[in-house]
Structures are given as structure tokens and as C-alpha cells.
């Protein structure tokens, strides 16, 4: 099936069929998740030689390994003999993988190292290593993979905008680095994956979808950063290009560490460590600015002091995985505070995302059987994303709107159209 993405993704609106059509989903698995860069893991999840984790990129199962020389490999979790999954646990540590079907063994770099009854094998074992992602690169501990190996350097994908977002997060550690706990929490939602880059970075919905959070916990700092309507709110929605976008909450923070729900007076050890590391002026700016609230296309949400991975499962099923950021070189109370904030904000039992989840599920239900033929051609089942188009401004390479503007949605879809509309 040929889908005309230029016709279905307009500057001011997109068609609902893009959230439900199986053919669109298949195209996305190839054009976005196979040919492009996706986030797979943080380096702290595979800290030592022999460590590995299992994860999916698109629908492809991968084992991310660190070999005995410390190099990273993204290997297909699929025996090169008959296709059996080699690892079925979330993480582990070993020097090789052995298939449970016929006992073939593979090294951490994917080489085939052992075949049972080898006399019957007429091929060179060197031809039968595991499939692997063509490119694996990291930026400040954030590991990305490009399965096809044709996407060009990671630095070009992230751009200066994407790199600056990751920098802002890492620089909240006096050592300039973060780690993540050994667990992510998965939230299974009956919606298309694209609703999550959109929902996680929508500055227009908070006082409607999350009114119960505001009523129950009125001291939440979202009051000041994304609520307050148009007149009272000075945060920005920003398009960084390349499909990366942000709700820039910095203009709304009135005091240092507001994003951590605390003050400098209550956290003298952290403030001292930051000033020693960065000097008073820069430390003061970092502690004022706080972490980004941003999306790195296509699947990494930098959710302030959380990370989330958007995993597509089927056109109408997504898993939103999250974990808490832990800052290296700070006292344990700061990191415990971040864990508790993370539990409050993200996951199936949290105070915020469950309400986004039912909203996404209601959208999915609303699109039902939306199709280009029966609906788009008759002007039906479009969604409008034009809010704020007329008042955006350019700030160098950044396109900036008000926080409630759909600048972030348009940033996603503009890049989506570029990637999906490419014919080869």
C-alpha cells in the first residue's frame, strides 16, 4: 500500500488515519525506527564488561552488550541459526549467549563461537554471527542505535538543539553525569505511539487533563510553569528542528531548584558541590534553569528528572517506559527526592500520566476506522494543530511559541513528514 504522507500531514493539521492504519505503522517501523536513530539505553545500564540488557527498537528485539573490551554492541536477540530469542530476561551479565534450541554460542560482540556437532556445518562460522545494528553511538551516556547503519552520525541527528537539551540535564550533576536505576516501569496504553511524543510535550492540556492533580496537590510547580492560561504564563513551546522539541519552562521558574520542589537553603551540600564544579555564576544559572522537558525524536522523552522511552507495539498499543534520573556526585537525599517525584508523575499508578493514558485511549477510539479514502478524501477525521501558528517567532534555528501553542506537535509532524515522505 502506498500512503501519501505529504497529503495526510499538512502544516496545520494531520489525518487521524495516521494513528490507526497498519500500513502506516509498518512504514514507520522501516523509515523511522530502522533507517533512523533511536534511543536504546543509558550507559549506566551496562556499566561493566559482560553487562547486557534487552530492549526493542521498533519491533526488533535487541541485546545491548558491553564486550570484554568495553565496546557497545546492539545485537539482534535472535539466534542466527533458527531465530530463537537468546535472552528473555531484562538484563544480565555473562561472557556469551547460548541458544537453548541447539546450543549455538555467541560472544558479547555477536560472533558465533560454538556450534554443537560442528562436523555437519559446511559454512564458515564467521558468516553466522548475530545480526546487529549498523551504528551504535553515545552522547554523554545516552546510547542511540541506527539499525540500518545509513543514518549518518548521531551528532547530526541530535543537532546542537538536541545536544543542548541533554547537556542541560547532565549538567545538573556536579560531575556532569547521570545514572538510571536498574529498573524501568512500563505503562501499557491502548493508543498509537505518536500520541506520546505529542502528549508528553503538550502545554495546552494540563489544566484540563490534570485538574485533579491540581486539586489534590495544589502546591505542584506545574501551577506556575504550564498553568495560568495565556496571560499568566510565560513558558515557551520550542521546535529545535530534526523532530526535537521542548516545553521550555525556564521563564516561569521564580527561584532556584523550583523544578526540584525545594530551595537552596534546604540543600546546602548540593549547592556547594555545584558551585565547586561550575563556579558560582554558572552553577546559579543551572540551578535556576533546571532540567529540560523535551522530546528527542522519535522515542526519548527527557521528562525533567525522568527519562521515558516510547515503544511502539502495534498501531493501537504503546508501552511508555520510564525511570528516574539519578545525579552523580550529589547527596543521597536529592536522588531519593527525585525517585519520589518520579513515582508521583509517571507510570500506571502515578498522579499524572494515567489521565494522559485514558485521553490517548479515547483519541484512539475516536479515530476508529479513519481511512484516507473514506475520511480524508471527504474532509473528515482530521485533527487540528494550528494553534499559535500565527504568533510563532524564529530565534536562530529555534521556532518559539507560547507554552500552550501546538508548536511542539508541529515540530514532530514536520520532521515526520520529511522522514516518512522520503520515497527511498
Amino acid at each position, binding site marked *: 500500500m502506498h500512503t501519501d504522507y505529504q497529503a495526510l500531514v499538512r502544516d496545520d493539521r494531520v489525518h487521524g488515519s495516521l494513528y490507526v492504519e497498519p500500513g502506516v505503522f509498518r512504514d514507520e517501523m522501516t523509515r523511522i525506527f530502522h533507517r533512523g536513530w533511536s534511543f536504546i539505553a543509558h550507559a549506566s545500564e551496562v556499566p561493566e564488561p559482560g553487562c547486557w540488557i534487552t530492549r526493542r527498537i521498533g519491533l526488533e528485539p535487541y541485546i545491548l552488550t558491553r564486550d570484554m573490551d568495553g565496546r557497545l554492541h546492539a545485537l539482534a536477540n535472535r539466534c542466527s541459526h533458527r531465530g530463537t530469542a537468546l535472552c528473555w530476561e*531484562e538484563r544480565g551479565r555473562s561472557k556469551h549467549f547460548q541458544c537453548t534450541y541447539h546450543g549455538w554460542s555467541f560472544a558479547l560482540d555477536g560472533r558465533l563461537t560454538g556450534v554443537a556437532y560442528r562436523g555437519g556445518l559446511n559454512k564458515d562460522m564467521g558468516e553466522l554471527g548475530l545480526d546487529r545494528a549498523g551504528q551504535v553511538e553515545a552522547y554523554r551516556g545516552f546510547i542511540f542505535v541506527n539499525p540500518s547503519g545509513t543514518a549518518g552520525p548521531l551528532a547530526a541527528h541530535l543537532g546542537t538543539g538536541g545536544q543542548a537539551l541533554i547537556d542541560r540535564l547532565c549538567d545538573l550533576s556536579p560531575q556532569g553525569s547521570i545514572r538510571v*536505576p536498574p*529498573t524501568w*516501569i*512500563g*505503562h*501499557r*496504553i*491502548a493508543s498509537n505511539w505518536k500520541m506520546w511524543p505529542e502528549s508528553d510535550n503538550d502545554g495546552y492540556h494540563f489544566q484540563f*487533563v490534570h*485538574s*485533579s*492533580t491540581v*486539586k*489534590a*496537590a495544589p502546591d505542584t510547580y506545574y501551577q506556575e510553569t504550564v498553568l495560568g492560561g495565556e496571560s499568566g504564563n510565560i513558558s515557551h513551546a520550542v521546535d529545535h528542528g530534526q523532530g526535537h522539541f521542548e516545553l521550555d519552562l525556564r521563564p516561569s521558574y521564580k527561584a532556584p531548584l523550583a523544578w526540584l520542589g525545594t530551595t537552596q537553603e534546604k540543600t546546602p551540600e548540593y549547592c556547594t558541590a555545584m558551585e565547586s564544579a561550575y563556579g558560582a555564576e554558572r552553577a546559579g544559572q543551572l540551578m535556576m534553569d533546571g532540567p529540560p522537558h523535551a522530546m528527542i525524536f522519535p522515542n526519548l522523552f527527557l521528562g525533567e528528572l525522568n527519562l521515558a522511552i516510547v515503544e511502539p507495539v502495534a498501531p493501537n498499543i504503546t*508501552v511508555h*517506559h520510564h*525511570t*528516574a534520573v539519578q545525579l552523580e556526585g550529589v547527596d543521597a537525599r536529592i536522588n*531519593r527526592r527525585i*525517585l*519520589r517525584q*518520579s*513515582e*508521583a508523575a509517571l*507510570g*500506571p*499508578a502515578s*498522579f499524572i500520566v*494515567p*489521565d494522559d*493514558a*485514558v*485521553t490517548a*485511549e*479515547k483519541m484512539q*477510539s475516536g479515530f476508529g476506522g479513519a481511512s484516507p479514502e473514506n475520511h480524508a478524501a471527504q474532509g473528515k477525521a482530521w485533527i487540528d494543530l494550528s494553534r499559535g501558528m500565527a504568533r510563532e517567532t524564529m530565534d536562530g534555528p529555534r521556532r518559539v511559541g507560547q507554552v500552550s501553542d501546538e508548536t511542539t506537535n508541529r515540530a514532530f509532524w514536520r520532521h515526520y513528514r520529511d522522514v516518512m515522505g522520503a520515497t527511498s
Partner: protein
Amino acid sequence: MSEPAATVAHGAIDAATLGELKAFLYREAGLADASDYDGWEALVTDDMHYWVPRGPADYDPAEGLSYINDNRPRLATRLRQLRSGSRWAQVPHSPMRRLLSNIEVLAADSAAGPYTVAANFVVYELAAQSTGALHLWPGRATYRLRREHGQLRMAQKIVELVTARRPLPNLAFLL
């Protein structure tokens, strides 16, 4: 299988107390099924800890990430949110029925308590807010119960879901 009371090494639990503990568990389950937040909150102590770990309860909840790790103030916030009328993940409430079995008294500090009691459960929950799917929530709950003014009250509930290491759908009701 002998009577559960026999599993308490010091034999401190008599049949009447065991019946009282079971009645408390069934009452708590019924209030949770009914999304009766006021009734349920009346059963908990001022230092209640409500924990739904991500996997077996074999880690320190202070140092790791959990689905729910509520101290009493956060539990109060959770219940306020549910009562707000706009907790969309529970508007309308999920129709639910839960079955409890294999109730065991694991420990008793004295005949008068506090008691540590465990039960297997399955919750049948209908996601009436969105998909209308029937979700099954099997697991084991461990309760810490003590007497306040003669009445049993819940000081801790740890809920270990069979599915805790897999992605879960919305869990916005009382488990």
C-alpha cells in the same frame, strides 16, 4: 493444609482472632471494590505505608522505583485526587470484584497484635473509562494490622503483583 493459625510458630492466634483478621481483609477488599474512598481511608493508620513494588518486595522502597510507594500524606493526596471528580483515569470508576484466598497469619507480636497477614488475590477490573477491556490483577498482598482503640487498622499494605515486571495498564484504583 491445616488451619492457617497453625502456621504461626508461637501459636498466639486463636480461632476468634483469625476470624476477626479475615473479616477485616474482606471488608477492606469490599471497600476497595466499591471505590469507597472514605470507608477505605477510615481503615488505615496515621502512619500507613502503601507499597506496590515493581517486582517482588525484595528491595528498599526508599532507594528504588515503585508503582506506588505512598506514605500517609501521599496516600491522602491519592484519595483526594480520586474524590475530585476529574481523575479521568477513574471516571467512571472501574467496576471491580476481587477474590481473596490462602489467608495466612505470618507473624503476631502478641495475641493482641500487631499481626502480619498475607493473602492471595485476583482483581477483575473493567477499564470502563476508555477501552472497556477486562483487566486481571493477580498477586499477593501482605498486611500489617494493629489495634487502635480496640479496632483493627491497617498500618501497611504491600501488593506484589504477578505481572509486576511487565508493562501494566492504568492502575488508578485501590489495589
